[in-house]
């Protein structure tokens, strides 16, 4: 069973440190809910694992079994069995979705897949996701609705069959029915032994797919690691208990706007 192991990971973007010592182990076959307030580094961690060029790793390591992930190019990480379902998938004009999917499938095969077999699996996967087949013949994500883009991400997950999938707010922009469809596919892939690390702000998706574990990231570190009771509690009460019970101050996102506005006291604000 493959294991993704992150040790003391520090990473920054444009000189600003976002990840400040992340330690985490994810096993193939487990489903982990990944929680934390906005702007605390969840998406950054995903992008760093996948190798986005914007992020710079300043310290620490990521290993997938005995492979040093940080030494690999982005496509090699994908071929190793890592997958990132993106929060905002790029729209790429002129690149036909099915050409792209076929290239991605072929990238991990010795012999290219035959056109017939490719369309067979594509047809089956689009049916499962209740996607119109014509999405396959359109430009990649261009003009797709929010929900169609997210389903297209899950479609890729199905075709590429990674060992561990990182899903970044895969449920945002999905209506109730679409959420059920996506959850059904995730459940099927869980039973196939795939591992999941899933960012979501809503308990609905987690209720449907039943994660076995939950982790919370605050201030660029993993501060809580436990059972599914964590996301239930956060869903009901928010993140306040982390401050009161664990004594961790939750840093607020930088606010450029002047804090003093009509209705607030300038003197009080200045002594805060």
């Amino acid at each position, binding site marked *: 069973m493959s294991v993704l192991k992150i040790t003391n990971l520090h990473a920054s973007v444009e000189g600003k440190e976002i990840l400040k010592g992340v330690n985490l182990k994810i096993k193939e076959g487990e489903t982990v809910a990944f929680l934390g307030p906005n702007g605390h580094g969840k998406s950054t961690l995903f992008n760093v694992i*996948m*190798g*986005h*060029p*914007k992020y710079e790793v300043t310290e620490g390591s990521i290993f997938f079994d005995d492979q040093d992930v940080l030494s690999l*190019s*982005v*496509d090699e*990480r*994908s*071929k190793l069995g890592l*997958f*990132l379902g*993106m929060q905002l*998938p*790029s729209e*790429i*004009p*002129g*690149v*036909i979705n099915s*050409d*792209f999917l076929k*290239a*991605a499938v072929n*990238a*991990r095969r010795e012999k290219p897949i035959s056109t017939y077999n490719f369309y067979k699996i594509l047809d089956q996967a689009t049916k499962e996701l209740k996607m119109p087949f014509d999405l396959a013949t359109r*430009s990649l994500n261009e003009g797709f609705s929010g929900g169609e883009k997210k389903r297209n991400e899950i479609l*890729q997950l199905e075709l*590429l069959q990674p060992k561990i999938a990182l899903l970044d707010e895969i449920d945002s922009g999905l209506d109730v029915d679409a959420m059920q469809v996506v959850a059904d596919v995730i459940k099927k892939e869980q039973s196939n032994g795939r591992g999941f690390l899933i960012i979501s702000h809503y308990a609905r998706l987690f209720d449907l797919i039943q994660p076995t574990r939950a982790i919370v990231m605050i201030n660029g570190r993993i501060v809580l690691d436990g059972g599914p009771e964590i996301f239930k509690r956060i869903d009901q009460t928010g993140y306040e208990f982390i401050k009161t019970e664990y004594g961790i101050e939750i840093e607020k996102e930088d606010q450029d706007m002047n804090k003093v506005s009509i209705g607030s006291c300038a003197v009080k604000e200045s002594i805060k």
Partner: protein
Amino acid sequence: MERKRIDQTNCVLKSGDYVIDSFSDVIIETEVNSCCDILLTNLSDNVSIKLTVSKDSQVTLSSLVENAVNSAKIEIHVKENSYLYSYFADFAKDVFNLKCDIELDEKGATAYCKLASLASSKDLKNIDINVNHNTANTYGKVDNYGVCKDEAKLTFLGTSHILKGSIKSKTQQNAKIMVFDKASNAIAKPILTIDENDIEASHGAVVGKINDEHLFYLTSRGIDENQAKELITLGYLKPILLGFKEEQIKEHISSLIERRM
């Protein structure tokens, strides 16, 4: 269906499919209420083509350029309630200078113009596609897509002009060039000249290297960087294939792109 060869310098076309192959100057007019598909191949040097799309007609003009063309002039007049669809696939070597003037002369005249241009090694290319809205209720859209690499120089000019009195007209100009190398030189200058109110006009120009986010997206699916770049570049040029009917020409253009990239 086999295309009819146009071999006179001055002719009136009935509905049908035609080819103009390596021709000198030519003046063509379509019959009223006709539908013509004209293929231009082997555009000769210093050629001048004048085409009139008569009332209630539709013309598709597809042009494949492979050899050096120092100067080509194309003038197209579009008459009442008529449509022009023009497609230029520019894979000319060394030099290509195109000046294309589209005159929307009568109400309901519509012109869509798409161009894909590949400039490599030391190519020098100047593409100048202009649309003149000479009367009210006319519609024009120009999309120029280019890839510029090595030491090539690629320039997209073009003015969409809405003349006085051309109310309710709509015009749009897009020019996009993807630049590959430091020595490449790319200029995109879509210009609007507006002399009337109550019209819609927009233009956009993009010159730049491959978008990093696009590259990350494709490579994160296991596609290696070179292939990802190739897919993105093909995405710039390949939509021009839709302008060509014959499978063998489509395949020929695809292989030209792959060879030249």
